[in-house]
């Protein structure tokens, strides 16, 4: 099994003047290719902080981070940005689509911006991804004219655009109604099953977590993990 993520002894302490707040206290976490892992925990348990560190948006105070065999915790800001662009995909609680662009342009954006333009190949891939997330008839729709669930599906397609090694999703269904949430989760499972894409999904929703292949629970900055079998029905 190919190792996608290896985080060892990850610590994060926030400092405010002389006051220190330890949030993560030595996290060891590994993810293999094709896993769909849920990260559970109460509010303030450090879920988002851990995701931000794994997503190279935040530097750990201590520990080592290896993604797809590459040690990334010491990379410069520029190299981290390049790494995020090529190897990581993000889905946030809020879709964060660019309102002045169409669904297709939003999906193609992570590939087009560094390349300086949307090539025909990028356009084709963006269309394929949108078709796959069930938005074939919304490809050229402005992002502002899509429903909440559709926007989140576009966000998933955007996260897949550069064929990332790891997709990090922070409460991806948190802002959706039950039907839309089901659709989005089904979609992530489908991509996971068909493409072997690796997902790390941060959620506080047990229903979402139950449909993942593995559940990790973060409690007071420490990780406890267990394995669960995926279930078919998601009840939200």
């Amino acid at each position, binding site marked *: 099994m190919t190792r996608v993520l290896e985080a060892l002894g990850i610590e994060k302490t926030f400092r405010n003047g002389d006051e220190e707040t330890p949030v993560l206290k030595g996290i060891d976490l590994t993810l293999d290719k094709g896993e769909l892992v849920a990260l559970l925990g109460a509010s303030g348990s450090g879920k988002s902080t851990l995701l931000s560190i794994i997503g190279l948006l*935040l530097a750990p105070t201590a520990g080592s981070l290896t993604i797809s065999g590459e040690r990334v915790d010491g990379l410069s800001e520029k190299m981290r940005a390049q790494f995020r662009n090529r190897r990581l995909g993000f889905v946030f609680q809020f879709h964060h689509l660019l309102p002045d662009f169409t669904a297709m342009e939003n999906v193609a954006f992570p590939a*087009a*911006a560094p390349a300086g333009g949307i090539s025909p190949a990028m356009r084709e891939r963006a269309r394929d991804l949108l078709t796959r997330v069930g938005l074939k008839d919304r490809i050229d729709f402005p992002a502002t004219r899509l429903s909440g669930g559709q926007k989140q599906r576009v966000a998933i397609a955007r996260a897949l655009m550069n064929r990332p090694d790891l997709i990090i999703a922070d409460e991806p269904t948190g802002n959706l109604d039950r039907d839309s949430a089901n659709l989005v989760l089904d979609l992530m499972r489908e991509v996971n099953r068909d493409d072997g894409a690796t997902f790390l999904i941060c959620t506080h929703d047990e229903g979402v977590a139950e449909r993942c292949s593995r559940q990790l629970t973060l409690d007071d900055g420490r990780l406890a993990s267990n394995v669960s079998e995926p279930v078919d029905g998601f009840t939200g």
Partner: protein
Amino acid sequence: MFVLLVARRYLFSSPSQTLLLITGVALGVTVFVFITALIAGLATLLTEQVTGDSAHISLEPPTRVARVLAGPDLPVESVALVSTFQREQIRNWPMVVELLRSDPAVTAISARISGSAFLVKAEAVRPVSIIGLEPQGIDAISEISPNIIEGDGDLGADGLLIGVRTAEQLGLGAGQSVLLRTERGVDRQLTVKGVFRTGVQSLDERIAFVSLQTARPLFVLPEGVTNIEVKLNDPEAARAKARFLGEATGLRATPWQEKNLGLEDALQAQGRTGTMIQVFSLISIIIGVASALVLSAYRRRSEVGIMRAFGVPSRFILLVFVLQGLLIGLIGALIGCATGYGLCIWIEGITRPDGTSILPIAPEQGGYVWALVLTTLGAVVASILPARSASRVDPLEAIQQ
């Protein structure tokens, strides 16, 4: 270019706001163009008024100065004295005239004998400046013939042309004779062949014209001339041309600017005033663009943050905002240049009953290239700060907002 597409989308996502911004820039550029054209037109008018009826370069004999001669070989202190045995004159003037004629920049040449004299009629005596010149070249420097209001202006052997003020003061008219007493003590009875009115007081009151041949015995100059007056096709080139002529002929060459230092100062002061207005226009444009882009960068923090999260390079985000500044500046400047030109043309078309424009504006000298370049550059400079701030947005902070 994808970055241009993003900049354009951002810019025109709020059409009314962008329209207002571009209108502001265009207004600033219109002011810039209008002031530049007005100052250029005013400068041209004043220069034409000064140079229209006078020479652009005056060539005169070199000034002779008494000086102490120093040197180790001289046993006693020696002094070079100014000789008063010879008149100051240009003896080789035909050669100088030939040289001037070969110069394409020279449009008119007038070799003259100038001197002071009194016109005496009975008990009335008026001082005048006599100009002796070739009769066919009387209009070379000042328009005299078209302004003759009495008589035919044919100078002949003993003819005299006087200004209307002189004629009024002495009660003279065409055909009447008058006694001329020169500074050399020569008296001669001359006939008034014409009276002119130029509207220039110094000419109408103080100047009288005779032929060069008449002037020679009057001022005891059988060969030479006292000065050569020159006009150029470009009055602004007078300084350089005077320097060249001075070196080429050994004569004292004085450009019109040195004879009108007051005008030059006034033009410079006017130019500085215009520059200040232009600078303030540019500053207001820069502040307007900068504040609009600062707001835009702030409003789009979360979008920029998500781009940064996806690893979009900082340079790309920087360019998005700089290009917005460039587009605002360029579009605003183009519209401003067009409206500025239109305004100048419209004002130029408003004329007085005599057909002259109410404002001496020069629409073709609106500084359009400068307005375009400076405004676009200014807008780009104005966008750098907000662009830098946007490119440094912390993606995590922006996403969590």
